[in-house]
């Protein structure tokens, strides 16, 4: 039960990232910080994960992905669920800020980033 409680109290983060190494590293690092992390390699997988695991407290979203990319995911997610789940865009694009704004994301972080930056953002936006 402790585990369940812990699960219940822990904040969940959905990481949508096509680069397996990045997905692995972010997941590992966030789990090390005590978050419950769900990974998805593209938009489809992300939506499936939400179906399966319920709404996360925050979504970390890569933009350029094969299959369903960040934009499509964001619009479909927002259409299907609420707008309250904060989305933080992780992108390598030069105009990351604009892109984040375009899809209605709450924040953005340019690749490459360090963990502390990411954690700062997550703490700022993660919903309880």
């Amino acid at each position: 039960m402790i585990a369940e409680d812990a699960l219940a109290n822990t904040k969940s983060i959905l990481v949508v990232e096509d680069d397996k190494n990045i997905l692995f590293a972010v997941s590992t690092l966030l789990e090390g910080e005590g978050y419950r992390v769900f990974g998805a390699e593209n938009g489809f997988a992300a939506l499936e994960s939400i179906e399966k695991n319920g709404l996360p407290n925050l979504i970390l979203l890569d933009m350029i992905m094969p299959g369903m990319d960040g934009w499509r995911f964001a619009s479909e997610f927002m259409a299907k669920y609420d707008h309250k789940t904060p989305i933080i865009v992780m992108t390598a694009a030069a105009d990351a800020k604009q892109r984040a704004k375009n899809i209605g994301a709450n924040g953005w972080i340019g690749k490459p980033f360090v963990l502390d930056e990411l954690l700062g953002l997550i703490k700022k936006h993660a919903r309880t």
Partner: protein
Amino acid sequence: MTGYVSSLLRGNRSGLLSGICAIIVCGLGFSALLGWVFKLPFLTSFDSGKIPMAPSTALLFILYGTILFLYATLLHRGRGIYLISILVHLTGVLVALVLVVLNYRDIHPAIEHFGFSILKNMPAHAHSGHMSPVTAGCFILSSLSFFLLFFASPTKRCLVYASVVPSALLLMISFVLTLAYWLGMPLLYGSAIIPPALPTSLAFMAMGIALLAFAWSYFLSAELFDRSTVILVGVFIVLTVGVLTAGFFIYRAYAQHYRTEAEHQLSAITELKEWELQQWRRERFWDAEIIYGNPVFVELVRRYFKRPLDQKVEQQLESWLMQFIGHVDYDKVNLFDLRGLIRLSLPVRGLPVSAIVLRRAAEVVQSKQITLVDFYRDERDQQIYLALLIPVIDTLIQNRVIGVVALQIDPRKYLYPILLHWPTPSKTAETLLVRQEGNDVLFLSELKFIKNAALNFRIPLNMTEVTTVMAVVGRTGVVEGVDYRNVSDIAEVRPVHGSSWFLESRMELSEVYAPVKPHLWMIVGFVVALIVGSGAFLAFVWRKQSVEHYRKQAQTAEALRESEEIFKKFMELSPIYVFFKNDQIRSLRLSKNFETMLGKPMEELLGKTMDELFPSDFAKKMIADDLMVLKSGKTFETEEELNGRQYRTIKFPIYYEGAPKYLAGYTIDITARKRAEAELLTAKKAAEKSAQSKAMFLDIAAHELRNPTTAISLLLQIIQKQVEKGQPISAATFARLHEPVERLTRLVVDLLDVSRLDRGLMVLQPVRSDIVLLVSKCVEEFKLQAPKRRFSFLSPEQLIEVDIDPVRIYQVLSNLLDNAVKYTPEDRPIEVTLSPMLNIIRISVIDQGDGIPKEQLHNLFKAFSRGGGVTGRVGGLGLGLSVCRGIVELHGGRIGVLSEVGRGSTFYFELPRRITS
């Protein structure tokens, strides 16, 4: 006028004018002839008292007029007419010449009248009814002008010019004559020359106009008359008429002056002589009064008759009567008794007495009046005398006449000298004394031009044109007529009051006008000089104008020639196509380069429509455009393509006489420009695309670089944390570092390759290699890397050796396989084939992926582009295929792709068996 000049008359106004004038000439001649036939003087002279047109003149007018009319109106003239016209004119000239000569010799043949009698009341010029020498001269001028026109031809045009001279002279002479008639002062009247009649003058005027009209029509047809020439001729005519008229008026003023002077002289002299005559008569009666009723004288006569032998009485009586004898012009005194016997005769006794005196003396006895016996001829000595008869009245015996004293007067002594005396020197002036006797006028005094005329010469009273007759029939003052010899004269006539005498002082008109003659010559000289001078001046002006005219014409022609030459050169050399078309859209002028454009010589191009030159819809459209330009009158621009070349054409209408009559235009070959434009556009698009691609590349590059660096950075953080926490470093985590590092490495390698290829720095190191082995190795490598994938390679049995850089070709194949792996779902097979052909080897990588949309195919092998664009599902810079192409092309081969969306793609590359480079 052998049809040449006159042929020009047909249908124009000159012909009409000549015809009308010819009719007038004919008509005047004919009417004059009628006048002679029917004795209607008016028809011959138009004015009784003026000279008539001679029958010979009338006949010539009819002939001349008829011929003129025929020439002016007949369209076809046979030889007959030519012969007759020449004959008539030759005859006319001959007759005129003969008559002039005869006239000069003062011979006037009666045959000229053709048997017509000269009418009594026609003005009796000495030779009325004969042709005037002036008329004859005019006929000669007419014939001369006719002949000149007759022989004129296009090669002998100067004859036409020459004909103007006699025609104009004829017109001038007749004009002056007619003018003189009109002003009531006809020329040549009273001179020795027969004056031309008024109808004659008019007919010559018409003839002159007709002849000038012939010449005029020629000038018109020869287009010798431009506007300025017509003006000059007009000015000349006006000047000539003016000068002639002015000259005539001056002449008339002189003539009037001398005539008035003569009239005054005649009047003064006549008045004086009349007074003298009256005075003379009065004196004679005073003489008579001395003894008439003188009682002393009567007593003496009575005593003498009673005692005839009384010497004393006789002496006393003689002394009484002798006082008369010495006196003036009494040359004889007789004393008659009642029986008519001469009782006393002085100065010599016994002189006989004329019977006339005796008879009149008897009358005096009865009348008891002093009587002047008018001029009488003494039958004994045949001398002319007058006599004064004085009755001797005895008052004592009931006033009985007892005798008559007869004083015989010799007019030669006093009376005739009075009459003959003329105060100024004059050849023809004289004073006549006449009286009426029965139906005659009897001349009482001697005449200047008829010997022994006194009391012998008589003129019947019905010769009213004679000035002397005019005096007798009661006219007084200045009269004009002819004298007793039928010579024109002017006279002052008046009766001598208290007598039966009429006094006439006359002078021949020729003498009156004689002083005018020097003036006349002077005037004629001035007139001729003025006309010739003005003619010469106008001719000079005309010549200068025509010289200027021809000079300008030559200049214009030269300018035209030069402009045509420039135009020709322009058309020959113009690099722009230039064309001119008529309103039928047929080419008039084309620049020479059209020959090259249309591949035909100029002769075949001119006069054709475009549709005839190259029948096509294009040509039809061009014609439609042309017609539209001509119709609308607006400039039109179009671009056309012919035989693979592109042209830009601008065409516009050329207005001629107010309407768009011609079409002109330029055509420029714009093929090169178009190509350059297109190339520029392509280049621009390419540049734009390249810029876009580069931006996109950077975007992708950033992503591609950041992803591995992000992964490396995060993985290193995990490792760091593990180290910090003293945990063992996870091997899995560590292994994960390989992949991003490798990706970065490959990116760098690809970029280097692209850069090398771009700058031509890539150098192949060809080696004879077995391509089959190379492909097999590569496929095996991929099988190892991706064991889940199904790779298949059907390797040919034999060994195929080609000259290649095996490292590079391996790179190409591995790139293609890498792509296939990336873009093909895991469950689909990837097939590699190798097809050896005659000269090439083809290697294909066949996948069953999504395929590539057609629009992306052409960009596939270009640098900085990637299938699927930015949103593509697979990472990578898209440099791979570009590098592949570079490598294959360096081998002298080619690379390509066949793809169908949903079915998969086949990437292939072909390599020559030997590298040719």
